[in-house]
């Protein structure tokens, strides 16, 4: 659609512009995402860039231009608009969300504009986030941090599943935004505490609390009624069991899922996104590990009760939580760069500060996710 002559173009905030006068190349640098767009343009067009300032209309800018240049100016402006470089200066206010929601998410919405290119797409993606119903199993060190990040991203509807209370040692790794007495004399359940935290970030949040443990007998149809996204951090008795249980249900019911990272022996792992019928499911991961670990057989440990023998750091839990949050965000923003046929697991290595990653393919014979 052609831009109207009274339109006052505005080169948006959050983008730096560099000009190579000799080669007539303009580089637009999107500060939030570090994307760069380079455009070669005629000199007169480049010279007009500083006047895309919300003050000068197209009519004023093209006032003394010959017809052919006016056409070129229109095309150039349309192109910049298609790349998300020209937006209405009040675009944030024009989104469908209330002012409080928008103002708290201002940074995120600007970030999304970098990726998605138009306020309309931003609105659509954020609306998906706002309407999603997310179930989180396990509010331990990683699960609790992830929950808070999702709240901060604007997710509003949750099912929180955890049977436990906070304890004196919870301050070691749990993220605790509100003051709380952690003594054993005044136990607070994790679901109650984190619901309270949620309301301090968004008064419109809707939470169903399930103070239960995921078992083989849990009725998932009831528990996951209307849930559109599942995140699993339940690692008792074992993350593999709970993930396979949930993954099978999610694949059958076409619900995307993430197996969260940060569990014992993988304190800074980065989680696996499972999209039914597209990525490997948890049974595929199980098959993969059965093969690769078939010759890795640790000797039975001399110490029987190892419940307080495992380590962890709040920062590593936060790392895992953030990597899962980014995966969730990417899925909802639907950039096209999420996991496809290949899944995998990433892991931050504390000792040398690197990130390792290995890929996992779908098992072509998987009885759960392959036809």
């Amino acid at each position, binding site marked *: 659609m052609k831009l109207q002559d009274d339109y006052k173009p505005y080169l948006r905030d959050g983008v730096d512009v560099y000009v190579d006068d000799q080669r007539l190349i303009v580089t637009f640098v999107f500060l939030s995402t570090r994307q760069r767009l380079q455009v070669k343009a005629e000199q007169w067009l480049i010279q007009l860039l500083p006047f895309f300032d919300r003050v000068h209309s197209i009519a004023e800018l093209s006032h003394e231009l010959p017809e052919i240049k006016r056409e070129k100016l229109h095309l150039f402006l349309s192109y910049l608009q298609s790349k998300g470089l020209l937006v209405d200066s009040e675009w944030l206010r024009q989104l469908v969300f209330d002012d409080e929601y928008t103002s708290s998410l201002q940074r995120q919405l600007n970030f999304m504009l970098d990726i998605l290119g138009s306020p309309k797409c931003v609105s659509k993606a954020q609306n998906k986030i706002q309407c999603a119903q997310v179930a989180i199993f396990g509010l331990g060190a990683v699960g609790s941090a992830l929950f808070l990040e999702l709240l901060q991203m604007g997710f509003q509807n949750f099912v929180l599943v955890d049977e436990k209370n906070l304890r004196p040692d919870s301050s070691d790794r749990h993220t605790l935004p509100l003051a709380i007495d952690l003594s054993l004399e005044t136990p607070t359940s994790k679901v109650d505490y984190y619901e309270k935290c949620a309301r301090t970030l968004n008064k419109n949040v809707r939470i169903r609390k399930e103070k239960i443990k995921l078992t083989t007998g849990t009725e998932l149809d009831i528990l996951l009624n209307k849930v559109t996204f599942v995140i699993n951090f339940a690692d008792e008795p074992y993350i*593999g069991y709970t993930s396979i249980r949930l993954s099978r249900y999610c694949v059958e019911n076409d619900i995307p899922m993430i197996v969260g990272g940060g569990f*014992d*022996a993988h304190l800074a792992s980065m989680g696996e996104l499972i999209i039914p019928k597209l990525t490997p499911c948890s049974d595929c991961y199980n098959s993969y590990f*059965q093969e690769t670990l078939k010759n890795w057989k640790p000797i039975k440990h001399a110490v029987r*009760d190892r419940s307080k023998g495992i380590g962890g750091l709040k920062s590593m839990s936060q790392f895992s939580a953030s990597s899962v949050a980014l995966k969730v965000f990417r899925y909802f923003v639907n950039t096209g760069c999420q996991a496809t046929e290949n899944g995998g697991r990433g892991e931050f290595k504390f*000792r*040398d500060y690197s990130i*390792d990653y290995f890929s996992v393919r779908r098992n072509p014979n998987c009885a759960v996710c392959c036809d």
Partner: protein
Amino acid sequence: MAKPKYDLQTHGFEEVSFEAGMMNGQEYTGGCSGGRSDCCTRTCSLDENFAESEKGWEDFLKVEGGQVQY
């Protein structure tokens, strides 16, 4: 080359290698030393308190290839 601090001849043992992080499952090697094949997560933090419930889960999930590894 500097002499290692511990050598087999003198001390009965010596260091072969030290790696900052273990990642790729395909690096794992080993001969069979037992009936169970346990992944590092479950073995390295396996809590005897959960031993009883494990059988229940294994029977329920009935994964192909035997025990769950994740």
